[in-house]
Each structure stands twice: as C-alpha cells, then as structure tokens.
C-alpha cells in the first residue's frame, strides 16, 4: 500500500473555440510535450486513465482511438465517463492500492467546435421526464439557483456582474484561456444577452476545445519526476439526488459533505484560514458564491461582501479561480482536471501573472451532472 500520492507533472493545451487539430492529435501532442518536459517515456507510467464522454466524442467506446495517442498501447488503461477530476480520483486510488506507482490522467473535449454543449447536457436529463418537458436544463437550473441565492442574501445582478468581470480579468491573464474579452466591465456583462435571468450570456462558461494531462505518483517514485511535488492530502466525492425539486440548491449538502470529508482527511479545521486559494468548477459564474460557501470557504450569504471587498480576487484573502476558472475555458471532461493543474501551478509558483503569493494549500473542485449533482473535492499542498 502507498501512503501519499503526489501530482508530479501537469500540462494543458492552449484552449480554443476552434482547434486546428483533431482530438487525437491534441492529446498526443499534449502528452508528448509533458513527457519531454519531465524527461520520461511511457514506460515510466503504470496506468493510464482517460476522462471523456462517448456523447462528446460522437462514438462509443471512444478510447479505442484515444488510448494509443496517450501512450497506453499494451499498457494498463481505463476510462472515466465523467469529469477529469473523477479520473484523477481514480488514479489516486489506484496508486494508494499499491498496485501502481504512477498514473497519467488525461481529460479532453471539443466542446468549442464539434458539438453544442447544451445538447450533450440535455442527454444527461431524465429521458422520460425532463427531456420531453423541455423546461429544466443546465441553464435554467443555474438561474433558479442564482435567483434563490440573490433573493435570500440580497445579492444583486450588479454583484453577479462584478464577479463575472473578476473571472474574465483573470482569464485575460491566463495564457491557456480560450475566452479573451477586451476590458470586461459590469455594464458590458449586464448588457449581454438575457437567457434565463439572472443568467446572461456573459455569465456562461466558455465551452472550448482543449485537453489537460496530469501525472500522479506514489511518494516513493515522486523524486524521479520532480523536486516540486504537490501532495493530494484529502479527497471527497458525493452525489445528490437527481430531481431539482427535491434538492436544496443553496445548501448543496453533497458538496458540503465532499468538502468536509476532504478537509478532515487533510487535517484542515478552518478551511477559510488554512486554504490559500480555490479552483472551482463553475459552469456559470453565479455558482461561485454558492459553491464556495458550501465548501466552507466563506460564510453562507457573504457573497455580496466578498465581491465588495475583493476577498476572492487574486490579491484578496482567499482567491477563487485565479485562473479565471471555466469562464475562461470549459472543455467539458477536462475542466475539473484543469482546476487541479491550475492549483498545482499555483502551489509550485508557476502561475505567472495570476500567481497567488505564497500559496501553500489549495482546494480543487469539479462537478458533473445537472446543477452539479456530482461533486469532487481535492485538498492539495506543496
């Protein structure tokens, strides 16, 4: 059995809205570049885990095409039909088991150019209830959640717009982000197309083409890869019930439970104090205060104050999505894994213009399913 698992390498593509290459080429180039950076070959990897979705790839058993591209030919490989952070959790457990010392995790999709993200999302809706009714979808759920939050805590559309601007500014400084908006402003956000109010186009994450690769290793082997390991010290993974009308969209007990489990494992008693930054998987910027509060990073209902005093900005007390988060790039299936890569970059002091000074501990979150039915939380430390 292995006791501690580290992130020893990470790399993401420059995400775009229209990739010049096919997904196979994209992940091949990405993994090749990561191996070259670390000076390793595929022989140094014991198990390969892909995160993709047959619906996003337009074919079933999609990995028959993608497995060879990441170097897993004649190697132990498996796939997760979910977000990449779930694949990282899988890799983490495989290494903990002691059967494997190293794992490569790759998540990818072509959500920017090859399919309509809302179409794939609609295939996750109950086929015999929600789909034929056409009322509940990812966008309207986000709007209902946002409205509940705004009403209860007097969070205004301007506050939400300011939060979106914060993320767009961070995305502008992130060389990997697909979305670049010149001089983002509250007025521009509030002037963007209304979808399901308060959700406007500007609040929607940037569905993009892109991929992310992360290498995990046992403590024993970590030195072979890097002298800057990032340790996975806590994990949590919880799912809520499916029906929106049966869920508490504000309390998000399942996310709260996942975070608590991860904090307990990592020995974190006061997350607000002990955590230096969070990378949160938001499909809509309105999810940020709700998720951050469910994860115990801010007091329930403090969204307005957090926006006002800039607490979640890069120079604030607890930066949330210093990378710009999925508002800058949301290549479905890679998005949660990118959060892990971005947090690793922060802890290794490699986050460039978006660097949070002196970051030692980070919390990483990923979601999947309608209205974040599934949540994964990692606590990582340098």
């Amino acid at each position, binding site marked *: 059995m292995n006791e501690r698992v580290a992130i020893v390498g990470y790399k993401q593509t420059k995400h775009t809205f229209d990739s010049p290459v096919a997904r196979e080429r994209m992940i091949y180039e990405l993994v090749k570049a990561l191996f070259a950076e670390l000076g390793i070959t595929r022989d140094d990897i014991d198990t390969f885990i892909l995160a993709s979705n047959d619906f996003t790839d337009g074919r079933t058993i999609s990995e028959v095409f993608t497995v060879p591209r990441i170097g897993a030919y004649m190697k132990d490989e498996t796939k997760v039909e979910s977000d990449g952070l779930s694949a990282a959790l899988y890799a983490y457990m495989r290494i903990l088991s002691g059967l494997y010392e190293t794992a490569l995790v790759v998540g990818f999709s072509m959500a920017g150019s090859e399919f*309509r993200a*809302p179409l794939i*999302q609609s295939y996750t809706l109950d086929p*015999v209830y929600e789909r034929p009714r056409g009322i*509940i979808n990812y966008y309207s759920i986000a709007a*209902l959640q946002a409205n509940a939050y705004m009403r209860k805590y007097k969070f205004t559309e301007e506050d939400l717009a300011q939060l979106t601007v914060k993320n767009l500014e961070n995305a502008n400084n992130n060389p990997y982000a697909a979305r670049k908006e010149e001089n983002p402003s509250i007025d521009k956000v509030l002037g963007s197309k209304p*979808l399901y109010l308060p959700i406007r186009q500007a609040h929607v994450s940037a569905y993009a083409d892109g991929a992310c690769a992360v290498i995990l290793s046992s403590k024993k082997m970590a030195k072979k890869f890097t002298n800057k390991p990032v340790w996975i010290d806590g994990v949590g993974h919880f799912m809520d019930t499916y029906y929106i009308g*049966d869920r508490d969209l504000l309390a998000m007990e399942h996310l709260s439970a996942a975070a608590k489990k991860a904090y307990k494992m990592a020995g974190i008693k006061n997350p607000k104090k002990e955590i230096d930054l969070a990378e949160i998987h938001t499909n809509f910027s309105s999810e940020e205060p709700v998720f951050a509060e469910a994860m115990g990073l801010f007091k329930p209902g403090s969204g307005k104050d957090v926006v006002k005093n800039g607490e979640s900005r890069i120079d604030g007390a607890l930066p949330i999505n210093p990378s710009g988060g999925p508002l800058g790039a949301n290549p479905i299936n890679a998005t949660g894994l990118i959060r892990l890569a971005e947090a690793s970059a922060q802890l290794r002091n490699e986050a460039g213009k978006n660097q949070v000074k002196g970051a030692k501990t980070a919390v990483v979150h990923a979601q999947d399913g309608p209205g974040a039915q599934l949540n994964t939380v990692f606590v990582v430390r340098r």
Partner: protein
Amino acid sequence: MLAMYFLILYITVQCTGKEGFMAGETVKAMVPITFMYKNRVGQALQVYLNGLKEKKIMGARCPTCKKVYVPPKTVCARCRKPIDKWVEVGQEGILKNFTVSYVNIVNGEILDVQEPYVIGLIKLKGASSLLSGIVKIPSVDKVKTGMKVKAVWKETTQGEYSDLVYFEPA
C-alpha cells in the same frame, strides 16, 4: 500548380499557428447520429401520467420520512425505502422560485422566444417536492415568490405531460 499547392500549405500552416501539422487537418466532416429509444417510464411516472389523464397531480409518500415526492418515485433516496403509496396532491400551490426565460433550448440550440416566460418551482398543497412548470402571468415583471398559483389543464387530456399546460395565478 505547384506554387498553388505550396501557397495552400503555407496558409494552412499559418492558420494552425504551428509547423508540423498536416495540411487539411482543420477539415470537418458532419457525423450524424440518430437514435430512437423506447424507454419504460417506470411504475412511478406511469402513476403520474395516468393521474394527468384524470386531471390529477399524483405523488408518492415515503413510509419512513413521510415526504411526498412529486412526480412520484418508487424509492426514497434518503431513507432507502421502497414506496408504493400513491397520493393525490393539491392543484394549487405557492411559487417558491422562478426564472424569467428569454430563450428555449431545443436540440441543444439556444433559441430566442417571442415573449419572455416564467419557469417556476411550485410547492403544491400536500407535496414535499417542488414541481417545475411554466407559470403564465400577464406581465413577467409581476412574478414574485410566494404567489399562489393553480394548475391549468388541456380540455381533453391524454395522459401526457402537456395535459397540465401551465400554472396561473390563483
């Protein structure tokens, strides 16, 4: 001819922004996939749909926590207990949450609608769940949580979701 070929190659390399990629790799092919499934709706939704036919809104009561799920379910996720107790809930309720919609999502396409409309989460009398539905209101600006609403039915019902057309202020 050869010059033309190199020109195209040059443009492709410029477009991809990186040398070494094969010319023509940006070409896309349409990949149509059509499936038609005939899924069973399951016992609980069958009860719900049968109820709609009789202009009734049916729910299911968990024997342990007494929660009334609408639409009905055969298992309470919290108690892990099977449910076979169907109950009719009220046709009036309170609007608990809503969004004003400017679009519809059809086949993944976000389409503008002519008039904005309200999607609501409604707590019907006797139900624990919030039921989602369209709330028809003369002016969408007037919509408020706490409003009393009631179900409006199609004249001739057929046991379909569309039998319950929308909710309107009660």
